[in-house]
Structure formats: C-alpha cells, structure tokens
C-alpha cells in the first residue's frame, strides 16, 4: 500500500496557520503580477506536482472547486492525493475552476471557462508547472511601470488580456516559488537591448 500512504501524506501539520501564510503569498502574487513569491510553508504532493503547486491546491481547492489535471499530472497518485486532501472533483477542462499541468499539457486556452459578462469571476485559474521562456514586459494593475518576466509564449496571453473583463488567471510554479499573471496584465515581447 505504498501508493495509498503517499496519497495520505504531504498535507499541513498546522493547516490554519500554514495555509494562511501560503495564501498571503498567493494574494501578494496576484496583486503584483510578475513578482516572485517564495513559499515558506509547503505541501508535498506526488511527482510531478511541484511543492508550490501542491500548496496552491491545498489552500484553494475543496469539494466546491472542480480541478482539471492535464497531461503528465493526470495520474493515479496525483488524483488520489487531491481526492484525499482537497476532496475536489476531477473534471475536464471545460468545467474546471482550477487546472494543473505543464504549459504544453494545458493546451488550448479556449477549452477553459472564461466567465460570463455578468459573472467574469466564474473563470478558471490555471496553475502552470515550470517557469521560463521568452523574455516579456508586463504592464497593468499591480505593476508600477513595467516588470520583466519570462513566459512560454506571448500571443496566448495577449489574446487572454484582450478578453478583459473575461479571461483566465495564471500561477506559474517552480519548486517553492510562484508568481501570478491575472487577465489584466498586458504582455509585450521584451525589446532587444
């Protein structure tokens, strides 16, 4: 029963305080797009889920939030872990409130819920595993002038921002670090220096 014990471990030992700290970092991240946040209190989910992504799932997901696992992340150990720790239903991209996977695996952004004109908050949040890519410049709410970042591509994020107030919001996770990109952020390719 090695698999089962893996599914049962990796949660918080002091959930109220640890999730409060982790959420505060997630809040700061969403309020300041492109700014890296270091998580101190970490959850541990089976590979390939990063500690930062596991922490986000633990802090934000519960039986009220359908979760979509994309590509490599859609495996029994991860499903069992989420079912035990969050109790979140596992669904396809169309019904998901949260989706988790690598940028490639998450695929076509058109598959996710964008919210409606009257309820733009009913849109999916994508938790992207991995950072890096082409250098870009970010502008918008939460950013004083502009901020440098790296994204796997630019066109998809420009299309997403053009949908405002509808659109998807993103977290990028790597190890114990994460940063966020809400729909309000305008992405341009960084000018060559």
């Amino acid at each position, binding site marked *: 029963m090695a698999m089962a014990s893996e599914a049962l471990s990796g949660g918080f030992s002091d959930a109220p305080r640890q999730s409060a*700290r982790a*959420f505060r970092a997630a809040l700061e991240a969403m309020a300041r797009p492109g700014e890296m946040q270091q998580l101190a209190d970490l959850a541990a989910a089976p590979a390939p889920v990063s500690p930062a992504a596991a922490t986000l799932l633990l802090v934000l997901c519960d039986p009220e939030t359908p979760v979509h696992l994309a590509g490599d992340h859609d495996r029994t150990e991860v499903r069992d872990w989420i079912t035990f720790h969050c109790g979140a239903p596992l669904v396809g991209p169309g019904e998901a409130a949260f989706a988790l996977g690598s940028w490639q695996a998450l695929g076509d952004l058109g598959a996710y819920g964008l919210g409606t*004109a009257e309820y*733009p908050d009913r849109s999916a949040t994508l938790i992207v595993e991995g950072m890096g890519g082409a250098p870009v410049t970010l502008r918008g709410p939460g950013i004083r002038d502009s901020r440098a970042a790296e994204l796997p591509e630019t066109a998809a994020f420009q299309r997403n921002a053009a949908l405002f*107030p509808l659109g998807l919001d993103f977290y990028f996770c790597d190890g114990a670090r994460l940063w966020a990109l809400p729909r309000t952020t305008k992405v341009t390719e960084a000018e060559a220096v």
Partner: protein
Amino acid sequence: MNAEQISGEYNFAYLDEQTKRMIRRALLKGLAIPGYQVPFASREMPMPYGWGTGGVQISAAILVPEDRFKVIDQGADDTTNAVSIRRFFEKVAQVETTEKTAEATVIQTRHRIPERDLHEGQVLVYQVPIPEPLRFLEPSEVETRKMHALEEYGLMHVKLYEDIARHGEIATSYAYPVKVEGRYVMDPSPIPKFDNPKLEMAGIQLFGAGREQRIYAIPPHTQVVSLDFEDYPFQRMKAPKCCDLCGAGESYLDEVITDDAGGRMYVCSDTDFCRERREAGHVGALGVAEDAA
C-alpha cells in the same frame, strides 16, 4: 499556558478553513478583475451586520500569525467599533495589534484612508455597507449586474449632472464613485471624497460587504479615477481649517462641538497622524505642547 491553548475553542482567525478558502478564492478573482464585485457566501459573525462583518471576514481570511493589525473607525483607533474588532482578532488570531499606521501590516478601516501613505506589504481592508454604486439609482440587482456587464454607466453621470443642476456643484461628498482601470464603476465605501485620490496606492486594497455578500479589490498602482465632467472637475473637500490639536493644514478634519454656545474645534480624523505630529512638536491653536503636558 500559551495563547494558542487559551483560544483553543476557536480555529485560527475564527472562521473555519472551508469558509476561508471560499473567501480567499473570491479575493483572488477580485484582484484579477479590479473593481468588480465578486459574490461570496458571507457568514454570520459574532457581531451584527453594519459593524464591519465584511471587513472582519476578509481580515480573518488574510491574517497570518506574524501580522500587526490596526483597526480604525472614521480614522480613530479608540472608538467602540475599532476597539471591539481589534480585541476580537487579538483573541481569535493572537495577532499583535498596533495603533501606528506605519507599523501595521493589515489595517481594517471603516470610512477613512489613513493620512500616511501606505507602502508595499501593507493591506487595507474596507468595511463596506452598500457595495453597489448604482444601487440608489437602480434597486434591482439583476439590472445593475447587467449595467456593469454592458459598461452602461450613463445613469451615474446623470446623477452627478443633476447634482450640478440643483446645487451648482457635484454635491456628493462621500462614497464618491470611481472608475477602476477604465472599466468598472466602483463604490469606494463611504470614505470622504477627500480620500479618493489616495485610492491609487502602493498597498493592496480589499473591500468586504458582509450583509450584501460582495468582495472587491484594487491591486497596488491601479488607475482609479473619480467620475467628473470636463467643466466640473473632481475636487477634494475638507473643512477650511487647521487641526486645533496639531496644527495640520492638509489632513481631513472632524468638527467637534465643545459647548452649547456655538463653540467648536477641528481635529484630525486620523488619530494616529495627529498623535505623530504632536509628538514631533507641532501644536495647534487649542493644543498643549507635549513637553508641558
């Protein structure tokens, strides 16, 4: 016995974890759509609606054990509402509290923005009675939601125009409507319009309306424009006096009646700002120098 054991009957910061997750998700979507009112399943709190249950729920969802928490009511730290909310979180979250704006990490406020500029890392939590800026113009939630969806804000400009037609100027002096990032018209809660320019700040601003079950937010450095007309531009307003205690000329003032013969004095509404100035040696017309006192 440590503090954790004493308040053992309560979960950290009072609310249960599932409720906090629900509020936290609403806060993140609120930040992603600045000025948009996110519905949330507001809980019964151990205080009546109208006493800041929206703000309290947000504070409960964001507080960490390391926070230093400040609560103000109309700028003052020592009024009933502020004192009881501060005590509440001292008890259920064991957070340190302070009256100093500069040292606080989370500030819950009723109807004022502190005079001192907030910096990065500070969060301002507003208590909001009526979150819908269009509510007094259109009572139906179905209709106002549609108006926000269609960005149909003509009615609000008609209201401001009628102010001018009737009073010769825009008479709205508090809860003055703003447009956030060029999209959503938002009620900044009943802060005096004197505070409106400060809505563009370096801290995070979160708004909670408990009875009306709405959460909204303004991220740092977000454009917040007070609605106005080219020929009737937005104007800040305050009593044309200086604080009688600290002599400040640029702070928002409360008028205090001192006797039944028309005597009155003006004092800073922000008690921490006033205290800081008096400690720095500033004295107003009716003030007493700190050293002599």
